[in-house]
């Protein structure tokens, strides 16, 4: 089954390239302290706003800080927020969706109405309010984004659980005396893993976008800690005159989010149960 999955995944060239791209970028950012040619807050007032050159591959900003260095450190924060927020959202969504689908009845109704309401809340304004009141640390960023992005996963998981719980192997587990928790954790959720993973992948891209938007509005992670989002914000005024300051973080966000979405799409196809059943 695993081999088949990889074979189907590998057929999607865009997804394989995306995965390679994401791994390389992720590794480079993770290794930022080792790889970066300068300290991330190394101000050098003698060389401010330099265009890309051999010594500063992506130029420098208005404080003379090396943009390449800041891209690496910024990516670390942005990608980490993306990954962690996706984990939080996926975990919440899976738990809520599984509980709703498995128990049905009143529990299902209540949980799904809560989900509807959460869906209906316009995310960005709420995020703005929340982040205005919380110190924009990495942890609160992750929690806020995670808490506002579980709904799609909850719905998908619920509908999966509704069909999986009718399977004979679930009845067999109940018949052998297994508890509900055991049935959920061992039999139901593992069989809904495909859509959960797809949702998680797409959640990474989504969280990176949200973090950027918030940073762009000045509500994200605060300087001097760089993120791609706040680098983008810092560069708005000089977008035309110093385009490299906007271009690099902008492209990084664009390509990473694109890559993650390609990976998610390919996962969805590769895990499609209707085709991988034998």
């Amino acid at each position, binding site marked *: 089954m695993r081999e088949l999955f990889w074979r189907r995944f590998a057929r999607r060239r865009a997804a394989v390239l995306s995965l390679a791209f994401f791994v390389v970028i992720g590794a480079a950012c993770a290794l930022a302290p080792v790889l970066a040619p300068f300290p991330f807050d190394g101000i050098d007032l003698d060389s401010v706003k330099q265009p890309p050159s051999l010594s500063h591959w992506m130029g420098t900003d208005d404080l003379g800080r090396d943009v390449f260095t800041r891209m690496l450190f910024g990516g670390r924060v942005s990608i980490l927020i993306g990954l962690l927020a996706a984990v939080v959202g996926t975990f919440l969504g899976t738990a809520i969706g599984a509980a709703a689908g498995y128990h049905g009845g009143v529990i299902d109704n209540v949980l799904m109405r809560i989900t509807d309401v959460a869906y209906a809340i316009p995310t960005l304004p709420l995020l703005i309010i929340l982040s205005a009141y919380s110190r924009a640390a990495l942890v609160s960023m992750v929690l806020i984004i995670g808490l506002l992005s579980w709904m799609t996963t909850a719905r998908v998981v619920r509908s999966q659980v509704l069909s999986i719980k009718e399977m004979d192997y679930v009845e067999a587990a109940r*018949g*052998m*005396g297994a508890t509900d928790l055991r049935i959920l954790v061992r039999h139901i959720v593992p069989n809904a*893993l495909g859509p959960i993973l797809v949702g998680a992948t797409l959640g990474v891209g989504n969280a990176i976008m949200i973090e950027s938007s918030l940073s762009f509005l000045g509500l994200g992670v605060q300087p001097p800690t760089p993120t791609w989002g706040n680098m983008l914000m810092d560069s708005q005024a000089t977008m035309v005159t110093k385009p490299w300051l906007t271009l690099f973080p902008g492209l990084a966000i664009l390509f990473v989010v694109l890559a993650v979405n390609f990976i998610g799409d390919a996962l969805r196809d590769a895990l499609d149960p209707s085709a991988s059943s034998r």
Partner: protein
Amino acid sequence: MSGAPLVEVEDLSLHFPVRQGLVRRQTGTVKAVDGVSFDIASGETLGLVGESGCGKSSTGRAVLRLARPTAGRVRFAGEDLGRLSPASLRSARRHMQMVFQSPFASLNPRLSVGASIREPLDVHALGAAGERDARVAELLSLVGLDPGAARRHPHEFSGGQRQRIGIARALATNPRFVVADEPISALDVSIRAQIVNLMRDLKDRLGLTYLFIAHDLAMVRHMSDRVAVMYLGRIVELASCDELFDRPLHPYTRALLSAVPSPDPDVEEGRIRIVLQGDVPSPADPPSGCRFRTRCPIATARCAQEDPPLRDRGSPGLPHQVACHFS
């Protein structure tokens, strides 16, 4: 086959609400099982036959309390299963297991075969954790599979092999009672006999008691000590295997048997095929009086008014229950 029966089913019913429309209002009731009673003695096999949709699986599920009966009682080893707390019921499940119809749907595709068979041992904490894998190997050999199969996944096996895995899982906790819900009807004809013989063999070796559900009469005859015939949620005839096959009393049973070729050439020559008219009525709206009357070749006006009770029409020492006014 002495002493109190192992399983006592009394007036068991299992109804499902029929919901329709936008607000899912209940518009009717499917009486999948409607007042069924039978006993199964320890070590006995009771066959349960009937057409598709007559409520065989529902009966099996209600007996094992995989579905909560609408009415009636199931006693297992003298204990009323309906009165057990959820935790006691879970622990009682150790003694009663199910083998499913579809060997493809009954095994979790994500678990290795060993993990599937081991699960009941883990659930009931049977044996030291380290000994459970040895027990899994033993169970695999018991059902005629190589113990190395434990590491592999269900999709690597054929239907027949998977059914053996399902049987091994059902037997892991050393149950006394097994409900086998059409364990062979999803299998290739060529391997059905193997599985049936395996189940017979296991029954003898382990002293099992079976409720064997099937719609293949020949298989039921081969497996069972007694046979119950179901029609639209009711048992219409119940007798020992030989008695039922040699002297069917209910018109429905006669029709079913008339469709089975006999191995005896003399009997085969005299066999007259009774073809039933019409379709099985909907279990949401069963006919008044006798439920079989819409298809019964000998129905009279009385049949539409009076519901025939299941009564013993056998000879002394040879019980033969039947639900028909005219037999």
